[in-house]
C-alpha cells in the first residue's frame, strides 16, 4: 500500500475534524422547551470549542436564578454541538457536559 493511500485511510477513519461548533440550548416557551442554537444554523459556526464552551457557560450563568423551578423564558440543556449536531465532549473534563439539565416530566 502506498503511503498516500494509508494517509487517506487515517484521515477518513481516525479522528473526526469538526467544521465548527454551536451552542445548543432550549428555551422554555409555554412550558415547552424550544431548541435553538448560537450562532444560528444559517450563520457561520464558531471555529473554537473553547470559545463555544465559554459561551455556553456564560449563557447558563446569565439565566441562573435563585428560584430552582424552571419557568417560561429560562434557558436549559445548554451544551456544545459540532456541525452535525452531535454533542461535543467538554475539553476541560473529558466528559459530556450539560449546563442547566432539564427533562420535561410528562403528566
Amino acid at each position: 500500500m502506498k503511503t498516500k493511500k494509508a494517509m487517506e485511510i487515517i484521515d477518513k477513519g481516525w479522528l473526526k475534524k469538526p467544521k465548527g461548533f454551536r451552542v445548543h440550548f432550549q428555551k422554555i416557551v409555554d412550558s415547552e422547551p424550544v431548541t435553538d442554537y448560537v450562532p444560528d444554523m444559517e450563520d457561520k459556526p464558531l471555529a473554537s470549542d473553547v470559545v463555544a464552551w465559554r459561551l455556553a457557560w456564560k449563557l447558563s450563568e446569565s439565566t441562573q436564578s435563585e428560584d430552582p423551578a424552571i419557568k417560561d423564558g429560562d434557558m436549559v440543556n445548554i451544551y456544545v454541538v459540532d456541525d452535525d449536531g452531535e454533542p461535543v465532549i467538554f475539553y476541560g473534563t473529558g466528559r459530556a457536559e450539560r449546563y442547566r439539565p432539564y427533562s420535561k416530566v410528562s403528566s
Partner: protein
Amino acid sequence: MESQLIEWQHFGNYMSQHGQYVVRAMLILVLGLIGAGLIRRFLNRMLEKPVFKHATLSTVINVFYVLLIFIVVAIALQYAGFRGLVIYRTLALITLGVVGIFVIARPYLPTLPFKVGNTVEAGGLLGKVEATTFLNTRLRTFDGKTIYVPNRRILDDIVVNYHFTPTRRVYLGVGIRYDQDLIKAKRVVETLMIGDPRVLATPRPIVYVTELAAGSVDLSGRCWVKNLEYWKTRCDLIEKIKLRFDQEGIVIAYPQLDVHHYGETCQAIQLMESYQTITTSDMEA
C-alpha cells in the same frame, strides 16, 4: 505711496464692476472643494468592502478626486469671467499630468513592505497598519495605542509582515517529567492538534521529542493554521494540552532540583545524631 493708491483704486473699480462674479466664483470653489471632499470620503466608505486591494481603491479614488477638483475649478473660473475653452485646455493638461504621475510613477516610488490592514512588526513595534503617508506609518498596537512610526526608521529596520504568507506554523512546546509516559504524551498532543478545525490538514501536524533536558523531556508540537487564526488557535491548544494532560495523568515538568540521599553512613547524619545525644545527656545530668 501714490502708485499703491492707484493700485487700490484699480482694485476698487474692478471689484465694483466684477465683484459679484468673483464672490460667486469663490463661493462655488469653496463649496465645490467641500463637496469633492465629501464625495471622496463617501466613495472610500462605499468601496472599502467590494474593492479588497487598498492600493487600487486609493488610486481610483485619488484620480476621481483630481477630476472632481478639475471640474470645480473650471466652473469657478468660468463664473469669474474667464473664457471657457482656455480654462478647459489648461486644466486638462494639468489634470492629465497629475493623473499620469499617479498611475505611471506609482510602481517606481519606494514603497513600504506592507499595506494598510496588515499586521506587522516594524520599528520595534507590533500592530496593525492603519495608514501610511510619505513621512510616517500609523500603527495601532494590540493594546489600543496609536503610534506614528517614521518611515525612515521602518526602512532601516527589519520588518516582519504577518500577512505576506496566508498560513503560519504554530509551535507548542511542553516538557514532561522523565517518569511519564512519553508515547502517551505525544499521542495526546497530536490528537489535540488534528482534532482542531482550524489546524490545516497539510502540512500534517507532528510532534517531536526535541530535548532530553535537565529536568524534563521536551516535546514540540507543530501544526499549520491560517495567519489570522494563529494566536487564538495557539492559546486554545495550550489550554487543551494542560487540561488533557491532567485528565490523562501526565505530569508536566517544572523547574526543580531533586537531591537524592543514599546510604546510612553519611557523615552529616552521624554528626547530627552525636550532637543530639550529647545535648540530651547534658540536660538529663
